[in-house]
């Protein structure tokens, strides 16, 4: 295929096709000759966001399509693996498009990335309602993860929201009755629940970001990083 081999295009090619080449190239893995045309960090961020949206949308189904879920998660793993080197750099400058939560994800520490990934992957464990206590994750994540990896696994359950409580076995639901889930009805996740299709790269999700105040943003980052442990009494709802 012309694209993957990075062949030069003819001069009389139309402008749109040149743009298409640039846009289409960014989903290739870094190191690929064709990727040199586009900044990988920004591109992977968009694909990462898209995949995260897909994952959440999939999980919010009453009975997730396991194949879809597994494929999205595996793709997310690949993306994360390719983004790992970039995450250790200083915060990535925001792209020309409107700054959004996703950029904060990128700008935050490596721990936050891996923790959010870990928590998302944890969601799989709740599909059939496994009754084991949240277990430390196997492998995943680039080196340099903090030792406090256990709390993020609990954060995953919170992120799912009350709708997925039905995925648990009956015995487990009682454990989580006292969790105040109103704090998770923030606008950050709103695009996921409202939109049935993942938004395009610069979708409405980012446009809603400016509406969140700083305090809410900090709180969300804390959740993602996993400083919010289940054992703590739930704070006042937001």
């Amino acid at each position, binding site marked *: *295929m*012309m*694209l*993957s*081999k990075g062949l030069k295009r003819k001069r009389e090619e139309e402008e749109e*096709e040149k743009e*298409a080449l640039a*846009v*289409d190239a960014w*989903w*290739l*893995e870094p190191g*690929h000759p064709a990727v040199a045309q586009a900044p990988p960090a920004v591109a992977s961020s968009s*694909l990462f966001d*898209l995949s995260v949206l*897909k994952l959440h949308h999939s999980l919010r189904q*009453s*009975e997730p*399509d*396991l*194949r*879809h879920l*597994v*494929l999205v*998660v*595996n*793709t997310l793993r*690949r*993306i994360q693996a*390719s983004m790992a080197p970039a995450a250790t750099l200083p915060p990535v400058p925001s792209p020309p498009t409107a700054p959004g939560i996703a950029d904060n994800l990128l700008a935050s520490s490596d721990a936050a990335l891996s923790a959010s990934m870990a928590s998302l*992957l*944890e969601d*799989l*464990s*709740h*599909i*059939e309602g*496994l009754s*084991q206590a949240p*277990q430390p*994750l*196997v492998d995943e994540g680039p080196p340099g993860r903090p030792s406090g990896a256990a709390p993020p696994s609990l954060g995953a359950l919170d992120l799912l929201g009350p709708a997925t409580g*039905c*995925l648990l076995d*009956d015995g487990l639901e009682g454990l989580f009755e006292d969790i105040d889930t109103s704090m998770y009805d923030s606008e950050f996740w709103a695009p996921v629940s409202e939109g049935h*299709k*993942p938004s*395009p790269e610069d979708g409405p999700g980012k446009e809603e970001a400016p509406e969140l105040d700083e305090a809410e943003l900090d709180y969300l980052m804390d959740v993602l990083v996993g400083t919010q442990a289940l054992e703590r009494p739930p704070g006042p709802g937001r």
Partner: protein
Amino acid sequence: MIPGLGALTQDTLWCFSQVKGTIEIGATEDEMLLSLPALHLQTSEYHPLFQLPHGRLGPWCSPTGSPAPLSCETGCREGSWILVCRLLVPTQVSLLSMEEDIDTRKINNSFLRDHSYATEADIISTVEFNHTGELLATGDKGGRVVIFQREQESKNQVHRRGEYNVYSTFQSHEPEFDYLKSLEIEEKINKIRWLPQQNAAYFLLSTNDKTVKLWKVSERDKRPEGYNLKDEEGRLRDPATITTLRVPVLRPMDLMVEATPRRVFANAHTYHINSISVNSDYETYMSADDLRINLWNFEITNQSFNIVDIKPANMEELTEVITAAEFHPHHCNTFVYSSSKGTIRLCDMRASALCDRHTKFFEEPEDPSNRSFFSEIISSISDVKFSHSGRYIMTRDYLTVKVWDLNMENRPIETYQVHDYLRSKLCSLYENDCIFDKFECVWNGSDSVIMTGSYNNFFRMFDRNTKRDVTLEASRENSKPRAILKPRKVCVGGKRRKDEISVDSLDFSKKILHTAWHPSENIIAVAATNNLYIFQDKVN
């Protein structure tokens, strides 16, 4: 013609034969109520036909022929004969007509639900010929099964081979609600598989996400008359009024086709069933969901054997699911199953009770030049089919169809590009979820040609001997009686020729996921959303 021999080697020309289904919204149509043989169905409280989903009502025709609104409830109580078919006569759209010189275009819509527009429930979700090709079954998203039967060929119309007409319609699965998990179980028919015919009745398996059912479809053309204790309407007579005794006799009646559920195989799958396959011993069959495969005996519904289980102890470690499974056509101990990672495992049930360790493992190494974030998704196998000979298996992933020799595990012997022009569009297709579409693939009767669907209502055939391929389209515009299908071509860049279509003009909402090939003749059935197209090769 010699069935299935060298299908594409002599430049087989495919012709439109029939199309079944609703026409698009916007076309005007008049309704005509006609009486057709073999479609009178006696009402009864248990008759599956009257368990209409969501209590839909419809104007059925009373026995006198005049249209009359009739609820299913009324029909059940009175037990009278009710006509359930109707013919829609559209004023536009070209379709097959019964005689050559007739202008009026008719659609045989007798099996439709009571609405004149297409709904999501009419989307066809599976198509399957039976072992002789006499019957063609379709399942749809609304849980209904429609069976077509090929009419007997008449001597005075030798140039036109038998057409398929509606034989039976029944509601196979209903939407269910799992109260324990607060989940709704879809009634969509995922797969239909026929059993080989062993007596006068036909048997098929149909499955939704959770439950497999064995249906018996049988004909009745005689009924007993002259009961002593019941009168002609079936009401009990007061014994005191009976003065004479008579012997009931069987009298001929209009042919009636009834479908009855003989077995219900439920509560064996936690995850969604994607495949069923009848074993060559005709005594057992298997059902596969995302993580497990169960073996059933047709006679036993409350037990099944689990023969494959790939569920990890810790669901966090889940990276692969089962996508399709099939029994070997001749060896009743052998089956294959495919995975979302593009691998195929062949298992022998004689080796152990739980076939977690495969006998053979088929996987092609990844091509490094094509590697991308989407490599795994496009390698996910959506369908696996044994050849009729049992020597080969065919797999379909997102962009290709591959033929594997059972004796060579490290790579396929043939790879066919279905729509390689999509390789540069994978990101968009990921965004709109099209990359997760599951296309099926089929062999022809002699295993010389394979067929699979694509987008824009295109479908592709590949001749394994001549290495030639063709792209055809299932569309109403090209559906004139016995019109020869013109090969289509997708233009990938540069100048677009007159008849070509550019990649960006493809309609990704029109996808052909389900196709079927007659077991011995060049007759194919192609499901395009809510329409079923039947094509035949040109008879000289």
